[in-house]
């Protein structure tokens, strides 16, 4: 993590005069490209300001030592600043991933302003692999660093296992004799490495060859946002598992293919927040399907039961069950394609859509729900321990108490058919007694309660009223619901946020940390820990992750970390917070 932060800091401080020139060096077939826009970054925090933070300097030194190779004298590297790296912080830099059938390249292209400083940093254990026409390259294993006086490329590669398995003739092409002692490709890892090195060398040469002038028109260039600190562009399919996992979770399909054409991610370091935005473009057909599935919103009646002083975190989902059931055959057909048709699954699913009544199911479970974590508190529990007399001849059972942390939560979901919910509960009651289940579901006055198995520290309650199914574990909250007790209303802004998105997760860092410190065990309460915890609790912000309503081109998801302390922007907030904690940990504060 720390390494990532260092690389991010270093990467983020590259600037943009010749950005376009370097963009032309990015392989045109890259699947992922990150454009790092440093004027934006440096306007938030200057290099001098960063260098004043001991944490940043520690990480920078670790990076320098790493660049130098572990055998280097660490003492000599102390006190190096950003300018000693030789990177030109007035130019933009790029990171990319290029996947081919034989090898995957991971690269980082950065401009240089001081070639000798850059060279002085090089790992002395790397061997010189190229030195011609002003371009030098050094390498070790599957890592290569190449540079001329203007820019440098860091390149790593991983070879595709299947490629070498399926193309054994490749060894002949590179004049490698067949190894007869082992019949298979297993023994040829060394040969594979040699071949990959040849390819990497060729790749490096191509970076310094003719510019790829077409890149200016490429999507990663067009999609980069000048107001973003970092813009990441990717071909849609590359993000299939990542993004589709999120959407697909609703309908439980596999990560086989992706409905969108490209995905963009942007990182913004704003005045009061740090935001990551992502968007995915959808085809017309998929757009309609998704619009139908998301044709719902959070039931505003839920707000009558959420107390503004009793929520630490919430999770909302508001999709339309009817819409999902209607779109299921289409979506599965789209994602599973031919194999789906081959096994007659399409027909089965179409038949299912005739048999099931989407509207009726959508009435029982509408599809909008909220899970609220309302409290984390210590509950006292008893346990058995033993005492002995002074001769150890008698063992006496004693009951002692200890504290256990138990979360309190409230889950609500909408229904337009309370009758069916009661029927389901009745069936569950019958089922639990017929199956002699470990737990018992019991009907009480106005609610159901699930008696836990033996010593679980709380019961679970179910209430069905007001078009809402409630599931909760707090006795007090149960009484409040049954007696219609008024709650302290949420702010209009919070309600608006909740209503806005089909999916939303919110975590109030301050409140959670506050609860955490109150339930902390005595053994962890050292003065240093308490001081750090106190500082963190005072300064930490809140995190929201949400999907926006359907947009013109497709879907968008945002993650927003908002803070309220006095820092002027997101970058300073994060770095100063980490630095302060780092110094407290070291004992300097």
């Amino acid at each position: 993590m720390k390494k990532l932060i260092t690389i991010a800091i270093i990467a983020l401080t590259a600037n943009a005069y010749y950005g376009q020139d370097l963009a032309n060096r990015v392989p045109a077939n890259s699947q992922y490209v990150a454009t790092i826009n440093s004027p934006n970054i440096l306007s938030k925090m200057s290099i001098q300001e960063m260098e004043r933070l001991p944490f940043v300097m520690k990480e920078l030194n670790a990076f320098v030592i790493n660049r130098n190779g572990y055998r280097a004298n660490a003492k000599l590297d102390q006190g190096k600043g950003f300018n000693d790296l030789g990177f030109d912080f007035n130019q933009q830099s790029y990171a990319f991933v290029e996947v081919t059938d034989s090898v995957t390249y991971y690269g980082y292209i950065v401009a240089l302003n001081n070639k000798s400083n850059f060279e002085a940093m090089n790992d002395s254990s790397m061997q010189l692999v190229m030195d011609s026409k002003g371009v030098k390259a050094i390498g070790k294993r599957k890592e290569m660093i190449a540079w001329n006086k203007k820019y440098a490329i860091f390149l790593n590669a991983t070879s595709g296992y299947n490629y070498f398995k399926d193309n054994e003739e490749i060894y002949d092409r590179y004049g490698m004799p067949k190894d007869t002692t082992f019949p298979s490709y297993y023994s040829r890892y060394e040969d594979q490495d040699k071949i990959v090195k040849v390819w990497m060398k060729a790749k490096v040469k191509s970076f310094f060859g003719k510019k790829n002038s077409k890149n200016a028109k490429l999507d990663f260039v067009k999609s980069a946002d000048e107001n973003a600190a970092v813009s990441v562009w990717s071909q849609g399919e590359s993000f299939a598992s990542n993004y589709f996992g999120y959407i697909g979770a609703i309908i439980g399909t596999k990560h086989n293919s992706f409905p969108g054409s490209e995905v963009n991610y942007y990182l913004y370091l704003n005045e009061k927040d740090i935001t990551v935005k992502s968007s995915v473009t959808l085809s017309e057909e998929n757009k309609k399907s998704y619009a139908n599935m998301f044709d719902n919103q959070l039931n505003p009646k839920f707000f009558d039961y959420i107390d503004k002083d009793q929520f630490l975190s919430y999770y909302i989902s508001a999709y339309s069950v009817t819409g999902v059931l209607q779109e299921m055959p289409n979506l599965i057909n789209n994602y599973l394609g031919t194999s789906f048709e081959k096994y007659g699954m399409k027909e089965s699913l179409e038949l299912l859509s005739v048999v099931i009544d989407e509207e009726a199911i959508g009435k029982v479970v509408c599809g909008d729900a909220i899970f609220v974590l309302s409290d984390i508190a210590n509950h006292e529990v008893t346990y058995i321990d033993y005492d002995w007399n002074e001769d150890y001849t008698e063992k006496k059972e004693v009951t002692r108490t200890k504290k256990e942390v138990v979360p309190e939560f409230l889950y609500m979901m909408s229904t337009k058919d309370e009758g069916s919910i009661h029927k389901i509960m009745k069936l569950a009651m019958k089922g639990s007694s017929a199956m002699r289940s470990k737990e018992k579901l019991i009907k009480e006055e106005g609610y159901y309660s699930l008696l836990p198995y033996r010593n679980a520290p709380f019961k679970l309650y179910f209430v069905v009223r007001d078009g809402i199914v409630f599931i909760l574990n707090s006795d007090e909250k149960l009484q409040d619901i049954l007696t219609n007790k008024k709650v302290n209303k949420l702010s209009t802004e919070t309600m608006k946020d909740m209503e806005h998105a089909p999916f939303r997760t919110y975590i109030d860092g301050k409140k959670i940390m506050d609860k955490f410190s109150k339930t902390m065990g005595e053994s962890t309460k050292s003065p240093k820990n308490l001081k750090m915890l106190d500082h963190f609790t005072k300064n930490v912000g809140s995190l929201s992750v949400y999907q926006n309503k359907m947009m013109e081109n497709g879907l968008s998801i945002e993650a927003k970390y908002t803070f309220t302390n006095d820092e002027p922007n997101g970058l300073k907030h994060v770095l100063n917070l980490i630095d302060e904690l780092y110094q407290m940990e070291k004992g300097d504060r």
Partner: protein
Amino acid sequence: MFPNIPLKYLQRIVAIALLLFITGCFEVIEEITINQDGKGKAGLTVNLSQGKSKLASIMLMDSIKGKPVPSEQEIIEKLNEGKVIAEETPGLHNVVLTSNFDDFIFELSCEFDSVECINQFIYRIENHYSSRHIPEKNLFSFQNNTYFRNADYLIPNKHKKEIAAEKKGLLSAKYVSIVRLPQEVESMTNEKANLAKNKKAIMLKVSGDKLLENTHSVTNKVKLKTQ
């Protein structure tokens, strides 16, 4: 099937919520009483009551970290297997097994003709569950007025790795070994052991993580005063 769906679903919610927030610990108590004639009583108590909420939650689940969670019935069956093996071991008598699932306390006790009979019982238990033959170990002996508890094998090396992975949970685990002897103690090798007021019994408490690290041991050689 259908009526069970909501219950199963809710079991998961409860169990996962609890597992995230509760940590537990446990205690194992080994008691040996040796009479003048070498006969005596042995008992092993496993007291999981400090973690009973966590265990009750785990018992609601079908599996945890990919490993199946046994039912009460299955646990009782396994414990009974142990009881039967004890009953079949020559020199062990009056084997009693008690299970308390409310507090999660399990106790196995018996009388023995000589303390070495326990070695035979452990030998039989180990080989009952092992696919390859495990030789008998000298864990308990009482010879020439000397009691020897050899606990070097308490946690077999092959299990140390997987136990170490769960080390956090073992920090507050405790192993208590008590031996009551027919005469007063003259000397003993384990510095951590406490001698009873009447000088005829010894108690040794070792925390689970220390056992795992091999920094503390239950091993003790006790020499008794001659009459």
